[in-house]
């Protein structure tokens, strides 16, 4: 529901500015290319279907909702196919048809694929926890689909109002998702923490957006960019402050330091699939928003946001990796905590090419590195969460120590997790992880940010340490194995692995392996023009 509102609000905002620009002479009615907006719209429509269907389905039939959602996400993903040429635009100003609020260009399509794929995998991960933990299914699926719709809208939005609304549509359901475990203190606390800090960031960002609007007189990114090339000198400070404050909101979503502190508690408090969702789709929202505003709206202020993002990137990766390094394996929820902190570290790498875009003439090339990296990260991080969800079924504590002997119990899943972790670390056999890092490095070196490359190199080594340590745990003999009858002890604690979970692990592993064999599949984004 919210999303439909968002879409209409976006168009309303666009329409509003259209009136301004056109001075009321030309037609005020914008033509809508429904095919172009199909991906977010389908997700939103299915969200409504699920919400309504929830009212009419008997308790026994509730699992059907999950499959409807999966279907919706698959359809939304398939609706990307007719758009592959990447030349569709809609909600354009009637006076200036080249200025549009929605552009389904290649960048938008790739990020939409990432978002919808991430949401699909999250859905697969959620099917069983909803049943087992007695979570309210109807609400859960509605919220997940709404958030996905917002996240899919964001990379294609090309005016500040739509951006803000898309960001909120993506985030507001996420707060509820984090707190969906009723009566769980940890879950509610996590949701509250997430909500408060997020709202603060949004408020700051709105302030920034209003400054930018005040300085440029337009909401459309293309016009903002134009206006910022020769700003009114009296408004220069205002514009600069606006640019900086706008970035804050997206930096928060990306969980860039110092806006990262909500991450570990939120991830631990949220149901595991939701944490997986936040770590991938939440980040995609943040970085795609950052890319859109920096490259599309503020290219002439690259001397402001370039250094800021470079410092943020260095800070983020260092904070994330050092904190991940300090996780003790026997602490409760240490596995999720480690994934949470490592995702902060990975966010730092994602920021590096965006920062480099400020320094290089070829911004599209640098942005492509972020997109390529994000695709790799999404696949393997979701895979890691999927295996974590699997382990959480037998070990609710989800300590890293619980992964000991996973190889003995589930060799295939242990190998998969080992592969995902090595991909995240960037070591062979995780070839795609290695080359994704190489593209990020090369973006930094290309832009002359040698210091950032060196900081990142140090961080990569730090990260290698904890990823490798976790990998090593997987292959150690299970605890108590030496004290006789290891088989007898393992067998009873080996329940059947639910099919959706197995599918999720299988899919992510397949993607990871396919990408490792043919890294060109995603790395071509790093060489081609995306924007």
């Amino acid at each position, binding site marked *: 529901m919210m999303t439909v509102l968002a879409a209409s609000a976006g168009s309303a905002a666009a329409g509003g500015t259209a009136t301004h620009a056109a001075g009321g002479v030309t037609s005020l009615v914008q033509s809508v290319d429904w095919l172009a907006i199909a991906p977010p719209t389908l997700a939103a429509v299915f969200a409504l279907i699920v919400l309504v269907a929830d009212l009419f389905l008997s308790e026994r039939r509730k699992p059907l909702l999950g499959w409807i959602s999966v279907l919706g996400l698959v359809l939304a993903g398939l609706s990307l196919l007719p758009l592959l040429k990447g030349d569709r635009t809609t909600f354009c100003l009637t006076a200036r048809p080249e200025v549009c609020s929605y552009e389904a260009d290649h960048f938008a399509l790739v990020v939409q694929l990432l978002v919808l794929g991430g949401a699909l995998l999250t859905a697969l991960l959620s099917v069983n926890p909803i049943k087992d933990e007695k979570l309210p299914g109807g609400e859960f699926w509605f919220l997940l689909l709404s958030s996905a719709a917002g996240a899919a809208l964001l990379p294609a939005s090309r005016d500040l109002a739509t951006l803000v609304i898309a960001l909120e549509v993506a985030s507001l359901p996420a707060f509820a998702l984090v707190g969906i475990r009723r009566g769980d203190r940890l879950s509610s606390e996590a949701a509250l923490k997430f909500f408060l800090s997020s709202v603060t960031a949004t408020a700051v960002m709105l302030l920034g957006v209003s400054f930018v609007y005040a300085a440029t007189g337009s909401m459309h990114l293309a016009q903002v960019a134009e206006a910022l090339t020769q700003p009114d000198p009296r408004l220069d400070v205002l514009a600069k402050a606006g640019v900086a404050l706008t970035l804050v909101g997206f930096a928060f979503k990306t969980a860039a330091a110092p806006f990262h502190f909500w991450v570990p508690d939120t991830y631990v408090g949220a149901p595991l699939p939701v944490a997986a969702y936040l770590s991938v789709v939440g980040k995609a929202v943040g970085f795609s928003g950052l890319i859109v505003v920096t490259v599309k709206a503020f290219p002439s202020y690259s001397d402001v946001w370039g250094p800021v993002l470079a410092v943020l990137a260095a800070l983020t990766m260092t904070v994330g990796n050092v904190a991940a390094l300090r996780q003790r394996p026997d602490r409760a929820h240490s596995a999720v905590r480690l994934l949470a902190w490592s995702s902060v570290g990975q966010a730092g790498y994602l920021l590096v090419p965006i920062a480099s875009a400020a320094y290089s003439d070829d911004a599209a090339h640098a942005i492509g590195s972020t997109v390529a990296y994000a695709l790799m990260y999404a696949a393997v991080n979701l895979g890691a969460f999927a295996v974590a969800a699997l382990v959480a079924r037998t070990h609710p504590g989800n300590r890293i120590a619980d992964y000991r002997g996973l190889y003995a119990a589930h060799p295939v899943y242990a190998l998969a997790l080992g592969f995902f972790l090595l991909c995240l670390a960037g070591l*062979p056999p995780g070839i795609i992880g*290695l*080359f994704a890092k*190489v*593209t990020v490095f090369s973006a930094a070196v290309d832009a002359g940010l040698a210091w950032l490359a060196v900081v990142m190199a140090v961080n990569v*080594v730090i990260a*290698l340490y904890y990823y490798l340590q976790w990998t090593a745990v997987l292959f150690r003999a299970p605890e108590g194995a030496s004290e006789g009858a290891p088989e007898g002890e393992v067998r009873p604690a080996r329940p059947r692995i639910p099919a959706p979970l197995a599918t999720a692990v299988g899919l992510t592993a397949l993607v990871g392996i396919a990408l490792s064999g043919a890294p*060109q599949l995603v*790395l071509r984004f790093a060489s081609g023009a995306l924007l």
Partner: protein
Amino acid sequence: MNHTVMQILLAGVVVLPLIGALAALLPAPPGLKGRNPDQAVLRHGVTVTGVVLAASIALAAGFDHGDPARMQAQTDISWIPALGIRIHLGIDGISLPLLVLTALLTFLCALYSYFKMPAGPSPKAFVALILVLESGTLATFAVLDLMLFFLAFEMVLIPMYFLINRWGGENRQYAAWKFILYTLLGSVVMLLGLLLIGLKSGTFDMVALATDNGPKSQLSHTVQLVAVLAIGVGLAVKAPMWPLHSWLPDAHTAAPTVGSVLLAGVLLKMGTYGFVRIALPIAPDGMHTFAPYLAAFAAVGIVYGSLACLALARRGAKGDLKRLIAYSSVGHMGFVLLGIASMTPTGINGALFANIAHGLITGLLFFLVGALKDRYGTTDLDRLAGRTGAALYGRAPRFGGLLAFGAIASLGLPGLAGFWGEMLAMFGAFKPADGLSRPAFLTFMVLAGLGTLLTAAYLLVVVRRVCMGSKETAEQEALAATPEEGATAGVTPGPAASTTAATAPTAVKEKAPAIPDIAPYEYVAWTPLAALTVLAGLWPAALLGLSDPAVQNLLGGGS
């Protein structure tokens, strides 16, 4: 031989071990089940490494020895156009010997493990890791693309880490971490250097980069300096160069026998090979600037390694033999680095020769010390030698003889493999390339010469303490130290043994533990190394004839 056949052979040599590693994890197919799963998988390891060895020998046979400077058996396929990474394989006179050495050592290790599986978890993973390790090392020597080189360079880390961590001895976890952190830190820096070269020149192709008027001309002096520094650090950690060597003794001490053999025999070579293949031809200006420093570190490493060994060999120092050989590797690799730093054909040929020689000799020595540990349960020199010496000549004459042979070869006796490489490296330092400070290099050469003396000293001390001594005293001490092991003894007791009966109250009180002499499978694993050591010593031209034209080509800036 036909070009296509050569191509397939080279690609097969790199890919086969990987497929073998995957196959090792799967259950054995019917008909190949063997006596039990463990035996089947170990046999699988021997088969795969054997096939790889055969393929690499065929490759060597088909190699056009008349033109070793030319890259042969080349395959060049585009892999990741976005980054300009190509699957470019090829061998010349520099990489061919290393390729064969790797295949040989891995095969011998697999064979040795078939009979003597190190204590630890299942052999399945062990075989798979050895095969991945082999693939990574072979790929390092066969690829001609900077990024693939890096990939292969990294590929060996994980298997080696697990080999040490899972099948190692005391302190293995600490040693495995130290190994992987040192090398990772080095290789990440190296990656930056490689990227710098690739981005500034526009290609990652080593052959194109090595030619003078090719993309290399795009590299300014500063870029070359930074690149050599970054790449050099990564390679120097691996080589290892003093003072970045400190992971090596720990790793060697903790690693299982075959791990040590492969680490010393093959993995260290990847570092020095990188210097010859990448740093020298691609960034000669940068290398020229850093050569004196490299040579200085190398010379210090030679002296430091041998002094450390001398200290370990002393009576009462509680020196560990494995650690001692690891330190001796630091010294030997110092010679290799010195040869490279001289930047002359003589020095580099010497370095490449010393590379191979060190692989053969140190591989043999680690096998022997591993076997010694199996026999005695310790490699602590003091506990081995006791008061008068371990008397291996008396108790296990063939074993003692081979150990002495290895030690003598290692100290560089003329007529054995160790001699030529180190002599040529010193010759290179005697007359370094134009523009390098001759007095400095003369000093380094003198230091290296001093190092050879010290090397001779400690190796002779080791031979004296391990191989010689009174058999009777040694047996007495062995009996006193491990009375319960006397039960398994099968050797005629010495007359003095009865006096220790009081300290050995077990049933069989008059027998000292027997030290079994070389077993047949040990002969099989060790003879090729010993034979090649003699062969390379007597006929160095076989190797130098291969490497020299290729070295001239690299130094001359290619065609």
